[in-house]
């Protein structure tokens, strides 16, 4: 299957196809059409401008509106439509605009005489007015009104330094009700909001925002249906994290999302970061073109600012740019003017800056940045994917994304069942897949893995696991009883066997047996079971029962979870000692570990960790900002948060709060 749906979209589509392929931006479309249909003659015309970045769907929306007029009889009778699309970039002055309108109208059978500008020049205003009156007169003769679709409306009103054309256009629109403008604009031009500009609050401005997760899913389902690839839709419902991660990091505009869908079709089975790389590569020509419009000094400042990722101040930029503050400020002002950069003003005098288009920022990091920057991008993409993958239900509804905290969470259980070594139990996962894990740490894990393998003869365990998963309990029990297993392991599987059937007291019994026989995995599972059930007393009893060696083994294999258990059960001196060993300047701890610390109210401990370990801070950007928010009173630093992670930060916080309610009521 090698169908490029982007191409498919851009090719000359028939009207039916335009209608069929119009999936997102339905609301905006309905809004405008409702209004047009209900406008009676004699009433005012509402003019619209859709403001959205490149690829946000402006042209498609305008095209869709156009088609509606050609298909619906009643509309066709009353209106003619002229669509000055993006390609018609020759429109720079108001008379160009009218000139193009006349050409299009003539192509539709109007007979407007061509006036020569030379008989008016240098009085181009008269020429403009004459062209306009020709249009009005032609429309009135045909008893029609004009819907004028203009893709780059900002360019037309920005084209001249003064407001001459803008004033004239407003005058013409005020004095004649024959033309309704529906336009697109990539920027929120100051013409729309400055008090002394003619078009101050004149248009109804509709912003075309990032697509929501639901909308992206709609796109995907549509294309998977159309391409006869039902697996695709299934895939995506199984792994929403991939979409969420990419949607958040690429600004989620329709064109990018379509590109993503296209890649899912043509190169299935990649992880989120991989797709991100592919999408970023596709954007390279666009962004390179945009960069080429900047001076070398502007480029320098923009790149350094992008590498910060978070918003940065002039002072922070000085050592990176090797320029003095004044120069940097001046350059930043230019970049702000040309909308590459936005200024953020906080309570203090100190201004912050960041790249306006966040996907552009990501593109910098992933294509121009050093290894360190790329690793950060990967860490963030992975984090988001993981977070939203594990959410069974939308995290904003307060449901638990990590699963591990709830025994009944199906996904977490599956996840755990599918593992044969301790690596796969999230909280005990010592293997952080990043480059930051110290060598020493890695070795330790390797050792652990081997010792685990010695204990478990996985050749026997696979069939057991499968039988239980298939709910074939008779077979499962038979296998457990007859396989050549270490007794501890056998008891452990008995526990799983009962637990899977929700016979928890039996399960508990076998867990305890297994633990007595030195099976540390059983100890982990049972205590995490108690933990997830908030059975604090059970945990205390359990740890009072077991031997020193067992505790030592547990600490070795499942250290971070053990630390959390100390915290949870209030053994503060032990907790403090062990936590300090974990939260060091050169170690990236597990995200689950940080989350659990936050759940158990250790905002300051986590904050201090991020302070001494900047790499961890970069690695866990969303967790860092969530910590700041929980801590409170850090408004100025919070302003630095890149907007693409703000939803995730909110989701993290609401998850933590739900968990806190659970543990502390």
């Amino acid at each position, binding site marked *: 299957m090698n169908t490029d749906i982007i191409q498919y979209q851009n090719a000359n589509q028939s009207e039916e196809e335009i209608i069929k392929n119009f999936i997102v931006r339905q609301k905006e479309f309905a809004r405008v059409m409702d209004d047009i249909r209900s406008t009676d003659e004699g009433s005012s015309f509402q003019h619209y401008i859709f403001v959205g970045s490149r690829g946000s769907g402006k042209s498609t929306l305008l095209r869709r509106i156009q088609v509606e007029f050609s298909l619906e009889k009643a509309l066709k009778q009353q209106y003619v439509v002229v669509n000055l699309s993006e390609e018609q970039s020759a429109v720079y002055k108001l008379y160009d605009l009218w000139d193009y309108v006349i050409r299009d109208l003539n192509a539709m059978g109007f007979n407007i005489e061509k006036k020569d500008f030379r008989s008016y020049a240098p009085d181009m205003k008269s020429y403009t007015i004459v062209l306009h009156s020709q249009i009005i007169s032609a429309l009135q003769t045909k008893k029609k009104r004009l819907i004028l679709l203009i893709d780059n409306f900002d360019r037309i009103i920005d084209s001249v330094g003064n407001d001459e054309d803008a004033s004239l256009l407003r005058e013409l629109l*005020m004095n004649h009700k024959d033309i309704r403008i529906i336009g697109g604009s990539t920027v929120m031009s100051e013409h729309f909001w*400055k008090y002394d500009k003619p078009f*101050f*609050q004149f248009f109804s401005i509709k912003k075309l925002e990032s697509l929501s997760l639901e909308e992206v899913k709609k796109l995907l389902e549509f294309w998977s249906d159309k391409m006869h690839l039902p697996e695709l839709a299934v895939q995506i419902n199984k792994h929403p994290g991939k979409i969420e991660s990419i949607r958040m990091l690429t600004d989620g505009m329709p064109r990018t999302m379509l590109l993503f869908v296209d890649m899912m079709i043509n190169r299935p089975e990649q992880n989120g970061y991989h797709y991100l790389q592919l999408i970023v590569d596709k954007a390279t020509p666009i962004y390179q073109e945009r960069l080429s419009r900047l001076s070398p000094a502007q480029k320098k400042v923009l790149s350094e600012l992008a590498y910060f990722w978070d918003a940065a101040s002039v002072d922070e930029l000085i050592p990176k740019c090797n320029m003095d503050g004044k120069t940097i400020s001046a350059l930043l002002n230019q970049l702000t003017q040309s909308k590459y950069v936005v200024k953020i003003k906080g309570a203090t005098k100190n201004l912050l800056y960041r790249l306006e288009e966040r996907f552009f920022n990501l593109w910098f990091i992933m294509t121009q940045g050093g290894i360190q920057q790329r690793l950060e991008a990967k860490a963030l993409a992975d984090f988001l994917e993981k977070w939203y993958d594990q959410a069974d239900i939308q995290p904003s509804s307060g449901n638990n994304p990590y699963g591990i905290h709830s025994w009944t969470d199906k996904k977490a259980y599956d996840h755990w069942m599918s593992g044969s070594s301790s690596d796969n139990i999230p909280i005990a996962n010592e293997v952080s897949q990043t480059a930051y894990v110290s060598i020493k740490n890695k070795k330790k894990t390797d050792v652990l893995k081997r010792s685990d393998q010695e204990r478990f003869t996985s050749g026997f365990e696979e069939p057991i696991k499968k039988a239980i998963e298939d709910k074939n309990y008779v077979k499962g029990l038979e296998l457990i009883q007859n396989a050549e297993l270490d007794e501890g392991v056998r008891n452990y599987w008995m526990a799983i066997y009962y637990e899977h059937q929700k016979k928890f007291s039996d399960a508990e019994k076998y867990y305890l047996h297994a633990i007595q026989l030195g099976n540390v995995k059983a100890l982990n599972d049972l205590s995490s079971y108690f933990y997830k059930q908030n059975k604090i007393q059970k945990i205390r009893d359990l740890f009072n029962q077991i031997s020193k060696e067992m505790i030592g083994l547990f600490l070795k294999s499942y250290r971070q979870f053990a630390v959390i258990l100390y915290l949870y059960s209030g053994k503060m001196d032990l907790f403090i000692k062990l936590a300090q060993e974990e939260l060091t300047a050169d170690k990236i701890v597990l995200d689950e570990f940080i989350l659990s610390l936050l759940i158990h109210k250790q905002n300051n401990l986590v904050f201090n960790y991020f302070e001494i370990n900047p790499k961890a801070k970069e690695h866990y950007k969303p967790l860092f900002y969530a910590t700041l928010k929980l801590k409170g009173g850090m408004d100025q630093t919070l302003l630095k948060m890149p907007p693409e992670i703000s939803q995730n930060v909110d989701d993290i916080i609401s998850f933590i709060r739900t968990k806190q309610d659970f543990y502390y009521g």
Partner: protein
Amino acid sequence: MEWKRPNTITGSAAEGSKYFRREDIEDRLWNEIDKNNHVLFLAPRRVGKSSIVKHMAKNNVHSFACLYEDIESDSSIQDFYRRLCRMTYVALSVVGKNKSLLSKWLKKWRITSIGKEKITIEKNDLDYRKEFFDLLRDLQVQRQKIVLFLDEFPDVLWKIYKRHGNDDAEILLNDLRTLRQTKAFKDVFVMVLLGSVGLSHIVKKVTGRADKVNDLHKEYLYALKPTQAMAFLDYLMKDATMQIDDETKKYLLDKIGHFIPYYIQLTIEECDDLLFEEQRPELTKPDIDKAYKILLKKHQYFEDWDSRLSKYFPHKYAYLSEVLSVCAANNKLTIQEIYNIALSHKNETEWKADLDDILIADGYISDEDDQYQFNSPFLKDWWKSRHPII
């Protein structure tokens, strides 16, 4: 569910079924017109001037020939008078009498018609100022009264001044005076000049004094009174799917605070969008809060309103900003309080001029019954959060 939108318009002047009658002010304007007085009709932007006079021009029950036009692109004396000639011609031809006069001008000015009620004057090399005064003399004989509503007039004066210097601007101002003071002219020709910037503000810049237009009759357009605002809500919501009970209406109006129709329209539209999405007709107070929040976010360009003050008036910024902050915090401010603030900033001499020429002329606040208020509720709330009073 078939969803009916409220009858809103947000941007273009409200006309036809979108226009909510404002009879009090219409009557006041007619009254002056009846008395053959030229009127200067003033209000900050977006308050609804154009909507009102467009309605008046279309629905005139008197025997006058009326016409409305936005004239903001005119930038010379010639432009302006050529337009007056054209408008007068159109206004007269609509009345249907005066045929011989019309054909005289038709020839002289080389008039061609474009569609109904629209014409252009083709002849360029005439002095249209002179033509216009000739025309007025003809009209006296005909005893036909013409009323022209000229929108954005102060802008035109400003452009003439900028482009052609103050001699030309003074010519126009003197003509205005002649038109006002010559009874023969007044009997047949009345102008209603609309503007958002105080005309006297510009005149002062042009001539150094304000007295050139002081005797022009001024009418101010204010925000809606609470009862009118209620009626306005009903007007917008008539036949709409969205339902809103009286208490919620009051809540909505309280939220907006100052009843400029435009902002009420915006809020209603946002509420409707919100309910439409959920296909739920009943508007609640939390919906209003939410819609309002969204609106505030959409109108986030206030940074510029702030920085403009500090950039262009660095020495006055402390004073101006405190006036706005107190006004935002208390919703209203009296002139006495403003003077008090001025003293604390040692701005005894220019405080009133700054108030008029900056805060009012640039659209921040306006006064009504000696109370100063923000024009835009969104700007007010933004300012309140940006510059809280501690």
